[in-house]
């Protein structure tokens, strides 16, 4: 086994660590604490946060990549170990091989037979054309009619295991957080639901394809789950990538004013006046060409797909930085007019110090709000980009690619609806949670809304 650290893996872990540090440092700031407390004091906020956290967990687990070692045949004299060119993640292992049980082609959710007829031999050895049984569904059943009972029984058992797992996970939390002023019960309930369904999915997928299979016979549920990493990473990394540019330029423009301000304003007006989709399409094509021309940089295909993915994040970031830049510029303008900043100037405090001490801490809330607000927009944008043909690499599972592929499946008779459903469900839950959460964050941090509440 050989760990593989893709660029996006490194970035996402970097992001998580820096967020953790950030909050660690903020814990002593009473004002910020108060605001966050406000976010978490609502049950909705707790639920939304728990759902997002679950998605992020999956994304992180799916970002721990490694390559399996190949077994050397005995005939081989060498001691050297070679690795599979397929990259596996910890998450793949945790799903219990859900992604490795391939059928021949389409099959419906919980089906026992393939969706398409094939030439098979019947009991008497005659060639007939019928729906062949699946390779990895209901093998343990002696008769197809047992299916419903079997599913029920297995579900109940899975639920019991799930509850056991819940007890293991939630009890320590309960012991720790008893008597807290936050509505932890809401979070625990959500955790319980998520854990139980996770256990249910993993255990049932050993015997059935819960969401059926796609054209190539791959499990749709597994694909939808793999889409989580792409969605979460895209939503966070794009903002992360653009942060340095937007913050630097915005703060500089607002603080130094004069020609710096003119140049920055010119830059963002120019960029934001180009229709976004055209800019994205052109840039994505550009990166693709670069990657195609330098294939030697990437050892395995996954790395290439990953490079494209990072590029996409970067492009999405660059095309959306102008809003953040504008906001930060305005805020900095305001802050630099404040008395204490003027005073610091008068005392001859250096620019770097003023920026670091007074300006930056005061624009952090804008960054946070943008970060949370942009997240869901970016996840949704991915689907549209895939439709236009400039989305993430097809070899990297994503909801956008699933939807794009499923469009033509809808025109089949009978309709193949499960691919679309899978992508829809997992995407909807994430975006909904993110939207609800961002509403709360904005309410808590936006001075305008707090003001409104004060006056109301």
């Amino acid at each position, binding site marked *: 086994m050989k760990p593989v650290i893709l660029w996006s893996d490194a970035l996402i872990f970097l992001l998580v660590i820096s967020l953790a540090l950030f909050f660690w440092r903020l814990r002593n700031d009473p004002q910020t604490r108060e605001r966050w407390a406000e976010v978490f004091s609502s049950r909705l906020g707790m639920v939304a946060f728990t759902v997002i956290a679950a998605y992020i967990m999956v994304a992180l687990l799916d970002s721990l990549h490694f390559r399996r070692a190949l077994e050397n045949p005995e005939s081989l004299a060498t001691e050297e170990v070679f690795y599979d060119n397929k990259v596996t993640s910890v998450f793949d292992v945790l799903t219990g091989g859900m992604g490795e049980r391939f059928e021949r082609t389409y099959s419906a959710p919980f089906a026992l037979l393939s969706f398409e007829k094939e030439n098979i031999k019947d009991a008497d050895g005659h060639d007939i054309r019928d729906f062949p049984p699946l390779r990895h569904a209901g093998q343990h059943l002696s008769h197809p009619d047992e299916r419903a009972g079997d599913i029920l029984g297995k579900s109940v058992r899975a639920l019991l295991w799930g509850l056991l797992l819940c007890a293991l996970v939630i009890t320590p939390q309960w012991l720790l957080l008893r008597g807290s002023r936050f509505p932890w019960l809401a979070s625990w309930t959500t955790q319980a639901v998520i854990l139980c369904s996770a256990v249910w999915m993993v255990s049932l997928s050993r015997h059935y394809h819960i969401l059926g299979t796609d054209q190539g016979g791959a499990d749709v549920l597994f694909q939808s789950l793999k889409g989580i990493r792409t969605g979460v990473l895209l939503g966070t990394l794009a903002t992360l990538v653009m942060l340095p540019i937007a913050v630097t330029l915005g703060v500089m423009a607002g603080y130094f004013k004069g020609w710096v301000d003119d140049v920055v304003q010119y830059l963002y007006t120019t960029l934001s006046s180009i229709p976004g989709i*055209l800019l994205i399409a*052109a840039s994505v094509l*550009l990166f693709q060409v670069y990657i195609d021309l330098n294939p030697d940089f990437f050892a395995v295909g996954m790395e290439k797909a990953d490079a494209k993915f990072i590029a996409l994040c970067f492009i999405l970031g660059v095309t959306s930085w102008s809003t953040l830049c504008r906001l930060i510029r305005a805020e900095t303008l305001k802050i630099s007019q404040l008395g204490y900043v003027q005073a610091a100037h008068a005392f001859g405090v250096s620019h770097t110090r003023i920026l670091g001490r007074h300006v930056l801490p005061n624009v952090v809330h804008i960054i946070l709000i943008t970060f949370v607000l942009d997240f869901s927009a970016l996840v949704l944008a991915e689907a549209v980009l895939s439709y236009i043909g400039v989305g993430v690499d097809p070899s990297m599972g994503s909801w956008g690619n699933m939807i794009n592929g499923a469009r033509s499946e809808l025109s089949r008779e009978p309709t193949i609806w499960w691919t679309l459903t899978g992508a829809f469900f997992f995407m909807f839950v994430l975006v909904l949670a993110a939207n609800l959460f961002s509403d709360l964050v904005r309410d808590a941090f936006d001075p305008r809304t707090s003001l409104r509440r004060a006056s109301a």
Partner: protein
Amino acid sequence: MFAYIVRRLIYAIPILVGVNLLTFTLFFVVNSPDDMAASQLGDKYVTPEAIENWKQKNGYDKPLFLNPDAAGVAQLTDTIFFDKSVRLFAFDFGRSESGRDITTDVATRMWPSLAVALPTFLVGIGVNICVALMVVMFRGTRLDRGAVFVFVALMSISYLFYIIGGQFLVAKTWRLVPISGFHTEGQVWKFLILPVLVGVVAGIGAGARWYRTLFLEEANQDYVRTARAKGCSELSILFRHILPNALIPILTGVVVLIPSLFMGSLLIESFFGIPGLGSYMLDAINSQDFAIVRSMVFIGSILYIIGLLLTDISYTWADPRVRLS
């Protein structure tokens, strides 16, 4: 006022030059003139001579930005960039890589775009305001919170699902309207029902939520309290006081969108087969037709700048205290 507009328009020039420079750089790194020739000429028997001929015919046989062979100013002007972008400022978009006149195409395709985008825009605003007003009537109740949740849920559904779902249900399963298409002979509205419906429904979540915030902001103002104290009915407060005042931020907020209605919607148009500018752009991206993309970027930028200008003007109109200078 007039002087202000003129000055703003002059400021637009460097922005447009910048836009052009950027699109040029992006596209020529992706696609050398040779590539463009090859993809336009098809895939059988493409000879180097044919490529040279094509480049000459379409004006791609010059250096990109700097012509070292020319003298003086011609070093800058005798280039592909100068040739192709200066003409844009005179609204001469030239010819697409496949030989069609872009100005004609844009002029004809603008109308279908508008035919879809304008009703969607107007009906959307109307519906959103109605919904938002209804919700505001119940501010502070459980109904209000429920409605906000529904709005957020509606916002969380990808646009693609609205389109796919609408086509699948309304057109395919129920056969109420044509699934796609557009022609001006006869009943155009027949083709507009579904795209407009989809556009409006997809926009309710975000739109109504925004209007609700605006209305709430007004509802908390002192004058509303005064009105209520005076004994005005709830209905008259809503329509006489809150709505007109909230219309100002609504107006200044949506005015920026009006010029871009001409550009149409990329997704709606390509799914519903509407021959507008949105699908024009998508086709251009897919076939890497640089001339069209360049023109569309240019038009888009101009419309955006006009939108900003309109916003400024609408501010003075809505609030006499604001002066443009």
